[in-house]
């Protein structure tokens, strides 16, 4: 098992390097070097430009040098100093800006993942064991709603009804007074009170797929001979379904946690823009529109890294529940 984990981590390294290269390339895509435009912007606003500071930054990020030198300096800064570069728009180091947003994105993703499983697994099992029953049809309709209506549209619809029917503003993840407050227990409780609507929105869009996967996988499994033999043993229907086919049917489910996380991050990004949540979504959008490239690149890279780690965790989980993979 340990050898398996080590091997999986080693495989992860080239993936991470590739991700960093792509993020860096994206960061380089807009024309011009950002320090020049930064200086120009400052001049335009009539502020004095500290040539020395500009040159220090230029030196630090290797601007004007060949691209691979810039890349190496960037990566070196990240690895040694956790220095993700400077945000031009916020005039602050990127690392100070992304921490909380990233944390909230992850919290939302994990939260919605848990909701989805809580809904999708029992409902999928029920649907599969009661094929063609009325609840099965209702669940199909529910899953089609999830597939057809994207998260940002749900966000719009919920925002409309909350505003007109309840007089509520569902935007944001915190109440006004906690918005810029430091983290405390009360702020955390406040977050829990706000996170469930966006969490549910993301869950609706992604649960549908999970529900259909559970149902389809289970339908493939329930007619296998090992289920019949378990039945012939005299086990009760409920116990045998949960112990045998569900266990096998859920394997592909766990093995795609990484992709599922990636999908959820996509949903969260769009939905957050609508509901103006303090996640990476609006931050990234703003960074991209104002060409604040170090910030944008850092967000892309960190989000991708997160899903890679998610995949790693799911692989380890899968090896733990399925002995066949562990011993391969």
């Amino acid at each position, binding site marked *: 098992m340990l050898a398996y984990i080590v091997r999986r981590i080693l495989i992860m390294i080239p993936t991470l390097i590739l991700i960093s290269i792509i993020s860096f390339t994206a960061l380089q895509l807009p024309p011009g070097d950002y320090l020049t435009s930064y200086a120009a912007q400052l001049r335009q606003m009539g502020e004095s430009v500290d040539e020395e500071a500009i040159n220090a930054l230029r030196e630090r990020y290797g601007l004007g040098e060949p691209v691979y030198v810039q890349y190496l300096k960037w990566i070196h800064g990240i690895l040694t100093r956790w220095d993700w570069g400077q945000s031009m728009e916020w005039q602050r180091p990127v690392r100070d800006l992304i921490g909380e947003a990233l944390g909230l994105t992850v919290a939302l993703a994990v939260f919605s993942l848990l909701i989805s499983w809580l809904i999708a697994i029992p409902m999928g099992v029920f649907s599969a064991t009661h094929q063609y029953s009325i609840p099965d049809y209702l669940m199909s309709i529910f899953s089609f709603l999830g597939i057809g209506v994207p998260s940002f549209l749900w966000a719009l619809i919920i925002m409309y009804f909350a505003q007109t029917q309840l007089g509520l503003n569902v935007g944001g993840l915190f109440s006004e007074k906690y918005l810029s407050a430091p983290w405390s227990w009360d702020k955390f409780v406040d977050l829990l009170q706000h996170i469930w609507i966006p969490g549910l929105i993301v869950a609706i869009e992604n649960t549908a797929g999970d529900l259909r996967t559970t149902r389809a996988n289970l339908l493939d499994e329930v*007619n*296998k*001979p*090992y289920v*019949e*033999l*378990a*039945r*012939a*043993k*005299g*086990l*009760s*229907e409920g116990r045998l379904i949960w*112990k*045998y086919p569900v*266990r*096998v049917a859920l*394997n592909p489910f766990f093995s795609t946690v990484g992709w599922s996380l990636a999908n959820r991050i996509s949903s969260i990004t769009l939905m957050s823009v609508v509901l103006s949540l303090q996640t990476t979504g609006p931050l990234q959008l703003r960074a991209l529109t104002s060409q604040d490239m170090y910030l944008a690149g850092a967000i892309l890279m960190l989000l991708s890294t997160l899903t890679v780690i998610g995949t790693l965790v799911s692989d380890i989980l899968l090896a733990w*529940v*399925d*002995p*066949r993979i562990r011993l391969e």
Partner: protein
Amino acid sequence: MENDQLLLQVENLKTYFFLDEGTVRAVDGVDFEIKRGETLGIVGESGCGKSVTARSILRIVPKPGRIVEGEIILHRVVDKRAGSKMIEQVRLTDLDPMGPIMRSLRGCEMALVPQEPMASLSPVHTIGDQIMEAIILHQKVSKAEARSQAIDMLKLVGFPKPEQRIDAYTYQLSGGLRQRAVIAMALSCHPSLLIADEPTTALDVTTEAQILKLMRSLQQELGMAIMYITHNLGVVAQMCERVVVMYMGKVVEEADVDAIFHKPMHPYTAALLRSIPRLGLKTRERQRLESIKGSVPDPYSIPKGCPFHPRCTKRIRGVCDVQDPPNVQVEPGHKVRCVLYQS
């Protein structure tokens, strides 16, 4: 006295499958009996209803199939463990297939050894887990006790190093070992009827011989009855005392194993026997191997009259394709469903 010996009665059993394309009469009026400790062979081509009969007895007919008529009666010794001889008749067809009584009989009084040992064990549980589960379910013993019983069972079926291999996963075992594990599981509660549904078809010939030998010796040791389902007549000759031949959901002939092989009466049985190769014949005794003309008819449109008449060489036009053949008792214990023997 005779009734003491009776274990299972199947009377006019009809199990149909209701599909969109039509109704498949998988089992269409089957009668037979199994006595205590005997081995009954059920023979027929694929799709003739052998396996569905077995599943009807266990009451695990898969959807959309259902028993529509007939009864199955199990004569069970009450309190086997306490040494009582009281016999109770249980009409299995009246029970709820998933109800507690049926569940307590299934796997305990009647156990199944399925066709494919490869696919019949869960890939993600150890064999020990699966055997112990059956023991705990029916005997209400502790986990440790169940484990030691499971090891005993594995030993009984000739499993090498059972103390260690009990924790093996199925993919770590060969086909023969898996089938032994499945047999150990079936025998773990000392059933009085073992239903073996082509238990050796998926195995190679040498393993098959080992498993057959094992089953025979276990039967002598434990005294249970075996209902042996197969399409292999050689295995029938080796294993069984009595034989039921099925064709298209009906029993066409029932007799002792000697009578079936030496004096087959139904044209179908005779044709089946002619289609197996024989070793050890002298050159001039050898004959061309015959096959049965045509193939099993479409299950949605069973021919009128005798279902075998389109393939039968002895059919009588205007009789076989019109009237249902009667079940004729030609000798004590020898029944044939054919007009040729009508008196």
